[in-house]
């Protein structure tokens, strides 16, 4: 009831301009979200390729290629792409995930044409010089040391993931294993580029103060001439069934112990019923996402077992994913005590339906969050790009709030009983080692 009042008051959480969708003859998908609050535009090109498309021996190749996309293409010298965007008042970068590689610019709306021209140039004409790769390889190795190897909790998470998944490519770190980065050649990068970088494997997302018709005209002009290329579907590489709990223990140079655990769960795309995925989303929000959520409330404040505890779930994923729980034990508590406390929270979700008041509160939080998310044009574009590239489709993503609203206490309990079970669980613990 409160939900209804909130929404009536806020004019409908899913309000906002409608999304404009186009597909060019060469298969490039174009999605335009108008937001006229400021004279700026976010332009993103998303490719359907990421670490979950990779196999052993070339892990990290999607991310490495992302780096090399700034190292010359067509008439552009190494670094020139960035230089041109900077001179025109823009900010730009790129990011690689398990299911996507994306490139973006944030810039004054008058400069959109420039972004599209440059992105089209590197969609097909990448230079990929061995000398540039030799230097960039060292940069990526430094990036890996910085992001992972020198961070105890990141190493723990990386080994945890590689333990949870035996056959699914979700086991690879996005940045790749160090030995694979080391052994990677320009030939590997070229083959990867040729296999996945094509208009028919990409989505252009533009959000901001733009006219959709004008975006389409510009996109046609620059991307239109690019040819369709054969793009293979990634082979199915499902995870083999798990039998019993998996466990991995690490000793690392650290000061604070850490625990991460996860249950294998389906994302929206693979759920037998969409309702299951939305129930998992709500389940994660019951545990985490606000100071009133259960993990902070029970583990951090009430029993003081942990100084920090969290949970998360990836609703939009291409492959089987994990319902993650992690925690840092309080100084006078052990890893074992923290593990027991987290498992007790899971058990409670299985044994008792969540109360109506708590469920309503969590839904209110999520619905309000949808309004707040519209404050960031970048985030709006991001959501569209992820949904499209993972394969969910933005039409489905628009049903998000309906999906959340429909979840009942029984739904949450049902998915907890089905998925939060021993045969889906992996636990990683990290204890500080001396020196």
């Amino acid at each position: 009831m409160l939900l209804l009042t909130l929404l009536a008051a806020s004019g409908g959480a899913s309000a906002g301009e409608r999304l404009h969708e186009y597909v060019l003859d060469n298969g490039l998908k174009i999605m335009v979200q108008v937001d006229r609050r400021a004279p700026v535009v976010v332009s993103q090109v998303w490719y359907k390729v990421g670490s979950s498309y990779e196999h052993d021996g070339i892990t990290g190749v999607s991310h490495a290629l992302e780096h090399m996309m700034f190292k010359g293409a067509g008439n552009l010298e190494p670094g020139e792409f960035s230089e041109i965007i900077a001179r025109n008042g823009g900010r730009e970068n790129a990011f690689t995930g398990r299911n996507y590689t994306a490139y973006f610019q944030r810039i004054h709306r008058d400069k959109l044409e420039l972004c599209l021209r440059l992105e089209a140039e590197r969609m097909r004409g990448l230079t990929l010089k061995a000398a540039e790769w030799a230097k960039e390889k060292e940069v990526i190795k430094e990036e890996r040391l910085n992001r992972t190897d020198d961070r105890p909790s990141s190493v723990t998470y990386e080994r945890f993931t590689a333990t949870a998944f035996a056959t699914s490519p979700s086991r690879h770190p996005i940045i790749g294993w160090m030995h694979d980065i080391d052994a990677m050649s320009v030939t590997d990068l070229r083959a990867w580029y040729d296999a996945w970088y094509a208009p028919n494997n990409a989505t252009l997302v533009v959000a901001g103060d733009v006219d959709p018709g004008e975006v389409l005209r510009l996109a046609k002009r620059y991307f239109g001439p690019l040819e369709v290329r054969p793009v293979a579907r990634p082979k199915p590489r499902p995870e083999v069934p798990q039998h019993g709990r998996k466990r991995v223990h690490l000793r690392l140079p650290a000061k604070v112990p850490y625990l991460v655990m996860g249950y294998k769960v389906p994302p929206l795309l693979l759920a037998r019923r969409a309702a299951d995925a939305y129930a998992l989303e709500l389940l994660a929000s019951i545990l985490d996402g606000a100071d009133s959520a259960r993990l902070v409330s029970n583990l951090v404040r009430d029993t003081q077992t942990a100084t920090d505890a969290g949970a998360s779930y990836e609703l939009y994923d291409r492959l089987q994913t994990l319902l993650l729980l992690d925690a840092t034990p309080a100084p006078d508590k052990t890893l074992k005590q923290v593990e027991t406390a987290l498992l007790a929270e899971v058990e409670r979700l299985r044994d008792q339906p969540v109360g109506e008041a708590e469920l309503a509160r969590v839904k209110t939080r999520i619905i309000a969050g949808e309004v707040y998310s519209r404050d960031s044009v970048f985030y709006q574009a991001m959501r569209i790009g992820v949904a499209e590239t993972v394969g969910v489709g933005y039409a489905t993503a628009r049903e998000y709030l309906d999906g959340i609203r429909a979840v009942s206490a029984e739904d949450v309990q049902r998915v907890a009983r089905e998925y939060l079970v021993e045969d889906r669980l992996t636990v990683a613990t990290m204890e500080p080692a001396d020196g």
Partner: protein
Amino acid sequence: MARTGLGGLCLLALLAAWPLQAGPLIQTWTTANGARVMFYPAPELPMLDIRATFAGGSARDGTQPGVASMTNGLLAEGAAGLDAQQIAERFERAGARFANGAQREMAWVALRTLTGPASLEPALDTFGRVLSRPDFKRDDVERLRLQMLSALDQLEQSASSVAERALYRALYADHPYANPPQGERTSIAALDSGAVRAFYERYYVARNLTLALVGDIDRQAAERIAEGIAAGLRAGGKASELPPAPAPQAGRTVRVPFPSRQSHILIGTIGMRRGDRDYFDLYVANHVFGGSGFASRLLSTIRERHGLAYSAYSYFLPMAERGPFVLGMQTRNAQTDRAIDLALRELEAYLADGASTGELEASQRNITGGFALRIDSNRKLLQQLTTIGFYDLPLDYLDLFNDRITAVSTRSLHQALRTRIDPQSMVTVIVGGDAG
């Protein structure tokens, strides 16, 4: 009602596409008991952001490092008889988000809420209680103490955090900016609710408050809300002025052994203040040198030419008194000396010759061309309003920003650089070297 700023008017001209509003955009006034209010009406989304910022960060810790952080952290742990859970649930039921934090200068609490009455009124009510009637109960102090000590452990396993602490200690010695925002172990162990209460009563007062509001409300509602928030606080007095930052000392190298494969390197000296006479020259100077990513000299040398690091950057952190000028990078232990040598040579060459006309123009075009990106969301506007209000910058700061940037010449840039940055004063902090 002290004054109404007209600063926003020129903003309209700058950003012709900005939706037209009746009246000035940035509005400012003072509440009855002396809090400064900065208001920007943003009617596009049915939401409101409020940020209450006090001059009550770790620079005010005095002999009790950590007291600013603990005071701030305890506000939402219990207030007006509500416990932490009740407070958090009230915000959640209203669909509102509460956030807080304490850095070196600022201690702040923030509220993001929908503007429908079912959200706004209960959210404001809870926010007001947290801000003006904290309980500082003993149990909550004990729990937060444990969390702060654990946070210190975490900090000690992060090479970059260790490096930052070491740099501030080396640059600021016994100046309050040397106080680490997370506090120190022995002092945290000794804090009690009395110390916290005294800190709260000195600094969480109306005359020491900058209240920024951005969102879908009109001026009348903003005045009512601001009055309501401030009325719960004692008038008190503004925090006293901090002592001037120390003059830069002779440079030196501080090595901290650390079990990491990369060394985290920070090279710094004393930089500039908010409202500094050289602010725009130094801002652009840094942009050319290390503040503009791939376009900057530092990243281009360290990463693009030599492949030594993933990230290499520099920045000025202007504060009420002179904050630091910092160069940072991380590289494999074995390459540390080479990277430092290259970075210092790059800096010395820059100090000697300044920027070329081409570099200056490229930076000016990036900064002015990207101006709209600084204010393209309510969240960013809230940040801008807070900065302008807290540091008492002129109300036309944003309006004139691009003009000031454009006015920088290669000559004025070089002059400012040379007089303000002494290469002999650079302190080099190296954290790492103890693993592979």
